[in-house]
Structure formats: C-alpha cells, structure tokens
C-alpha cells in the first residue's frame, strides 16, 4: 500500500511538471500572454504596394506595438492592397489624418506597419479607413530608380 502511494505521488508530480512545462511554453515562450487575439477594433488601409508584409505583422506607433495586421486582400477595382489592421481597444485616440507606412525592421527584418499620428481632433473608429498611406520600399525599385537617375545625369 505504501509503495502504491509513492507511485501515485510520483505520477501526480509528473503530470504537474508536464502542465507546468506547457504553461511555461504558453506564457513565456509563445505570444499567448501578449495582446489577446480577437480583442480590439479594426482599421483599413489601402496601399499601392505592400512589399512582403504578412498577416500578424506588428502595427506600431512611435515604435510601440499597438496592434497587428489581421487580413490582407487584393482589391480588384482599384488594383490596391486592402490591409485590415486590428488595434488594441485601449488605443482609441488615433487621429483621423494618421499616416500609415510600411517599414522594414533592420536590413533583413520583417516588414511592419508604422502609424504617424496626424493633428486632427477627430479620432478613427472601428471600420474606418486610413486615407494617407505610403507603400513599402521595394529595394529593386529604388536601385532601378537610382541607376536610371545616374544614367540620365551622366548623359548630360
């Protein structure tokens, strides 16, 4: 009977350790603790070119993550990318004339949406669209432009 009890205690500790490990993975390793999914309100933004922006990329303001990219669609009528952003609901005072840019974190980093606040007193609400956007910088296009300018300048 004593031995059976020891076994039971061992198994109990084993299961508890496993749950603890899973909890550790959920909270410390993965993003479950950050920005609960589904919470927040949605803003839309149209971009000429989104580069390699991905769903779940960060949306930042002054460098602080305030939301995530929720959906990326292609609008066949305007030939633009329609990006839906989910902003955490505690950040509810984003001016109406806010500027949305697509930036790259570092030279090899991922792309993210950076918001530059405007000066308007009107604030964006759920479902509103950001009017001012700036496309992603595509490195090939910049290099192409640079070479073109160089060639044009050299010809004169």
């Amino acid at each position: 009977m004593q031995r059976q009890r020891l076994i039971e205690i061992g198994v109990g500790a084993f299961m508890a350790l496993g749950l603890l490990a899973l909890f550790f993975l959920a909270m410390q390793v993965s993003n479950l603790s950050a920005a609960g999914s589904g919470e927040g309100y949605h803003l839309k933004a149209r971009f000429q070119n989104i580069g390699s922006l991905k769903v779940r990329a960060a949306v930042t303001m002054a460098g602080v993550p305030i939301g995530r990219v929720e959906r990326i669609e292609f609008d066949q009528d305007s030939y633009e990318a329609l990006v839906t952003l989910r902003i955490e609901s505690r950040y509810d005072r984003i001016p109406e004339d806010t500027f949305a840019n697509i930036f790259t974190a570092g030279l090899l980093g991922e792309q993210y949406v950076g918001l530059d606040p405007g000066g308007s007193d009107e604030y964006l609400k759920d479902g509103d669209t950001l009017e001012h956007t700036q496309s992603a910088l595509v490195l090939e296009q910049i290099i192409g432009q640079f070479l073109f300018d160089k060639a044009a300048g050299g010809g004169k």
Partner: protein
Amino acid sequence: MLDALAHLGRAGIGAIRRLGRGHLLAASMLLGSGEVLRRPGLLVTQLHSVGVLSLVIVGVSGLFVGMVLGLQGYHVLSQFGSAQSLGVVVAASLVRELGPVVAALLFAGRAGSALTAEIGLMKATEQLSGLEMMAVDPIRRILVPRLYAGFLAMPVLAALFSAVGVLGGWFVGVGLLGVDDGAFWSQMQAKIDFHEDVVNGVVKSLVFGFVCTWIALFQGYDAVPTSAGVGRATTRTVVHSSLAVLGLDFVLTALMFGD
C-alpha cells in the same frame, strides 16, 4: 529462381499479415478502452513506469539539446549580426520539431523496448495464457492501461523536453555568450505562436505517443515466445518506432506548416 520468388512472396505475405494483426490489436485495444475508467489504478502504475521513469533521460537530453542549439545558433546568427534572434531559433526548433521527435525517439528506446520485453516475456512464460484461462482478457487487463499510459505520458515528456531545452538555450545564449536577456525572450514571444507552434507540437507528440506505444505493445504481444524471439521483437520495436516517428513527423509537418 522460383525459390527466391517464393521467399519474397512469403516475406510479403508475412509482412501484410503482421500489419493486419497489428491493426486488429489496435482495434481491440480501443474497444476495450473502458477498462481504463474501471481500473484507474492500473493506468497510474503504468504511467509511473512509462512516464516518471523516463523523466531523467528526457530532461537531461532536453537540456543538452537546448544548450547545443544555443551554441550552434549563436555561431551562425552572429555572422549575420542577428544573435538577438537566438531565442526564436532555439524555441521554434524545439517546440515544433525537436521536442516531440527527440522525446519520442528517447521514449521508444527507453519505454517502448521495456514494454515489448515485458509483454514478450509474459507471453513466453505463458502468463498471458494463464490470464485467459482465468477468463481475464489480457488485452484489456495488460495492454490497454499501457497504451493509454504511453498516450498520456508522451505529450508531457515532449513539453518538458522543450521547456528544459529552451532554458538550456537561454543558459548558454544569455548566460555564457552574452546575448541580451530581454531581446532573447521578447523576440521569442513575438515569433512563436501558441496555436501554430505549441499546440501543433502537442498534437504531434500525442500521435507519436500512440504510435510508439502501439508498436511496442504489438511487437511484444506478437513476439515468438522464446528468449531469442523476445530479443528480436525488442529490436524491431525500436527500429519500427523510430522510423514511424520520423516518417509521421514529415507527414504531420507537411499538414501543419506546409501551406
């Protein structure tokens, strides 16, 4: 010539028969699952021998695998000036792949072989027939608790492996090599998704736990009841489980992360 052909045919028929017997055994074990609820004590005893006794090997291996990942990852990443992403590399490889797979391989070697030897010896010493003589179904009484013990222990072991491995990588990266502590954890949390990565890892280990235990039990139950037969069956358990784990891992990875 004809002899060779007949030999090949015999081997093929034997393999297919074994496959069929294996699936029949799985079916009758699943049908007898109610036994686990009626006698939870049997399950606890098996969880002890399958899970608790595998803790040390899984924990120590996880620690070293994590530490090696930390060293190797740092070496490569620092060439690109992105040593700060070390946490992502260590955690993603552990949670997605190495945790479930290596823990399952260790499980097959440590617990699977022991299960096969135990059941095989029970068969060789006619204990299984003895149970049947007493109108006790050996499948329900002996095999079913072991199957569920393996099924439950495997995800726990894999989660422990991953968690200890991440701590090992953290120890080497942050403690010895001087990666920034905050960047290590924050980049990891930013890139590792709970549903995408952690839950998929747990699903993988559930599948591996079932398959490894099933193979071990079947090899023991199907062993030739001699000492040489039990020995061969034990070897087959480790070989077949390892191959099944690696093959299934590819299939599961393709299904989970393929798109």
